[in-house]
């Protein structure tokens, strides 16, 4: 499996993701600059965290016009597993690949810290094999992770089972329905605010994030 890690100007989490995929899981991964227009050689895409375009205007709003996004949309349509983490999630929302939008945290403050996250849906490439209801320790670090969707949209999300993760315990940012992550209707595009890549080593406090990457590996093995 070959994974593309997309790098927009201002993206910060690409080295973290690259380290985790290659050093921790021994996968093949490549940093792909945002001007690339052909992603067909990759089996999965990750849009990492950070502050693409400085989070100016709205987080993710400017990145959606990067040249690479055309091929991200194509990959999404063709069923390629795509994971957006933090700012990557925000980009997927702004690009319309995932439903809803992000607002600034209810506290108006950036929030970094450990967080319990409940897996709600296991039928995505990134949660395959994780029993719904499983609680994961995944750190969060964001200033605009307050997920919003209107009531009709929320009802639609629930009916279509597009909610993948919810915050457990306290809701750290005011998200509607404590939603921490969602997927598209087909389930191959997943976005979440928590950072699974920062939770893959006991040395750093939690290994729960491994499950997300192992799910992708399982998905890939099963598909082969």
């Amino acid at each position, binding site marked *: 499996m070959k994974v593309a890690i997309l790098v927009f*100007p201002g993206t*910060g*989490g690409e080295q973290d993701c690259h380290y985790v995929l290659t050093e921790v899981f021994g996968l093949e991964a490549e940093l792909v600059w945002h001007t690339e227009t052909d992603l067909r050689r990759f089996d999965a895409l990750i849009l990492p965290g950070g502050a693409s375009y400085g989070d100016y205007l709205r987080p993710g709003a400017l990145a959606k016009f990067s040249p690479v996004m055309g091929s991200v949309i194509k990959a999404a349509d063709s069923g390629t597993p795509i994971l957006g983490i933090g700012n990557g999630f925000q980009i997927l929302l702004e690009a319309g690949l995932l439903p809803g939008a992000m607002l600034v945290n209810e506290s108006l403050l*950036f929030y*970094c*810290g450990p967080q319990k996250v409940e897996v709600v849906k296991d039928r995505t490439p990134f949660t395959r094999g994780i029993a719904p209801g499983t609680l994961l320790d995944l750190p969060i670090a964001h200033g605009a992770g307050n997920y919003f969707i209107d009531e009709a949209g929320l009802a639609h999300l629930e009916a279509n089972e597009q909610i993948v993760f919810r915050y457990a315990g306290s809701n750290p940012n005011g998200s509607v329905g404590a939603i921490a992550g969602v997927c598209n209707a087909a389930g191959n595009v997943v976005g979440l605010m928590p950072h699974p*890549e920062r939770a893959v080593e006991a*040395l750093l406090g939690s290994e729960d994030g491994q499950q997300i990457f192992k799910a992708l590996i399982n998905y890939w093995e099963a598909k082969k």
Partner: protein
Amino acid sequence: MKEPTPQEIRDEKIWQSLGLTEAEYEQICKTLGRLPNYTEVGMYSVLWSEHCAYKHTRPLFKLFPTTGERIIQGPGENAGVVDIGDGWAVVFKIESHNHPSAIEPYQGAATGVGGMLRDIFTMGARPIAALNSLRFGELDDERVRYLFKGVIAGIAGYGNPVGVPTVGGEIYFDRGYTGNPLVNVMAVGLVRHELITRASASGVGNPVMVVGAPTGRDGIAGASFASGELTDDSEAKSPTVQAGDPFVEKLLIEACLEAIEAGAVVGIQDMGAAGLTSSSCEMASRAGSGIEIDVSLVPQREPGMTPFEIMLSESQERMLIVPRKEAVERVKAIFAKYGLPAVVVGKVTDDGMIRVYNGPNLAAEVPAKSLSTDGAPTYVRQAKRPAYLDQTQAFDLSTIPEQTDYTTDLLNLLDSPTIASKQWVYRQFDYLAQMNTVVAPGDADAAVLRIKGTKKGIAVTVDGNGRMVYLDPYQGSLGVVAEAARNLVCTGAEPIGLTDGLNFGNPEKPEVYWQLQQSIQGLADAARELAIPVTGGNASLYNESSGQPIYPTPIVGMVGLIEDIDLRMTSSFKDTDDVIALLGWPGSELGGSEWLKLKVGEPQGKPPVINLGREKALQKACLAAIRRRLIKSAHDISEGGLAVCIAESCIQGNLGAEVQLPWPGRIDGLLFGESAGRIIVSVDPTKWEELSELAASYGVPLVRLGRVTANKVVFTCAQDQQVVSTTVASLKKAWEQALPKRLG
């Protein structure tokens, strides 16, 4: 726009409004052998400012020990470089941004972070951590709350999007800083030895490039444009506060490191204070070369800028690069990838002159050496011991009645913002970015980062108790270095280098100069005795408001090395029935303590006496105990004394403690005294004997105080009287709620 002529500058003493003294102006005339023009006077005025030239502190810096086996780069560069083995080196420095933060807290702090990071990656190092040391007035003051919130937001607003984790820091709240907050930022970078890059313009004929953000009028409107007759162009009245752009900084980091890795760069320097003037002159004078630049080629953000303005602008996120001659196109391509301008504006020459052209016209021509720090005048002032010391040192503790119960005092101390949990602050910082943070803020006396691809880790801390230094600048400063080292040692790290941030009042006042002298002597003596070389630092003088100087506040940033990251230590108690013990020499000095502040408000008494010989033995013993896995927690006794230290270990471990104080004397001193050279450790009972032997072998006392319990926190004195009785939940509530409840 009409600039004054050289004659007008002389006759109307325009040099004065630019901050030069008459003697300095005359020295410039003598150096040049003619009257300087406006641009030249401007260049000298900024580079010979206290901020750039360290006119008062440079003679005193000679006291610092600056060499050591691990030192790759000592003072004199953008940042110090220390070897940590395996081909890696750590780059670090501390810098203040006090004045800008007092005017505009968000941008002041943000640009402080930005400037500090540039000093790190200009050395070829990737910034891996930032810390901050902050001083504010008390939080009951509305303006103080505004400044505090703004500074924290600024640090977060810049540090988070550039992807550099803010992993630690310290904050003191005291009326002594009400009108003049202190914002010191330390940054730490990691570099392979072969990529260490210096700010030196060598290779005659090599091009000189300006890269990064375009140049505007930021930061030059102040002193120079105060004399209104210079211009009626309203554009010139741009705000004096520089604004930071973390997005451009992030791109600049990536582009500079890519250019350095590509082997394209001969020398590189941040354009910090005094912008193009300082960067060109420092790079040339370090190499013994000259630089010729044409300011008309510098990318500009505003129309109609003069050579004076371009040379003095403090626009952020810019660098001066001297590439290899054949690598210009490579550098341009790398910067183009990140959407940043990279323009050749001149070349390196061999005659030691800085020549500034504006198109075909020569706008300034001065010897680089004369402009540089080495060429600037230095001042040794008259020193006088301040009279207040007679009063504070005569303080008589017996005027404070003894109590039978100190539970309320302990809760009040935990509720004091200086001691309280700083979670409200560090939650706003992305302290996990880059995935190296092994010991996070609030978990130990210092932050610990792992070095990927090795077994190693580094610990980093910033420390500086200004109140102690106020009460005795020499002893207080010994204490600052000793405490920083002790904090590192408590995480299992061996201190390997320090950087100093000196924050003082007006050195032209004999009392302030005395404080400065005494303090630097203290820092230097402690650094020498503990064998921790000084790799550079920063001085911020003239920190006063309404004529009142701040507490003399030297801040030490220190880096320690952990050879095996598995042998790291935190400060929380781990298991019930573990033995709680004091490693070090018992003490009960209350002078300058937080407890005394609670009782009398103003700083009083003499600060703890520092015994460097004992300190050294203690630190060695503690490190050995950690490396031999004999202890389960280590926490330095500092603000709030032994009782607060144990309370914090309880809170962090969510456990209780049963402690018996075996010493005679005033209970308040035993509980809350801040005597140095003491570490509270917790020990598995089966390891007690081995630990006792180890302590004895280092000649360090180990005193058994009690045991870790489930949730009650009880202190008993030698007469078996309970003097503190509470629960960990009550302590935790006081400690955690202190900041949120004051900030709303």
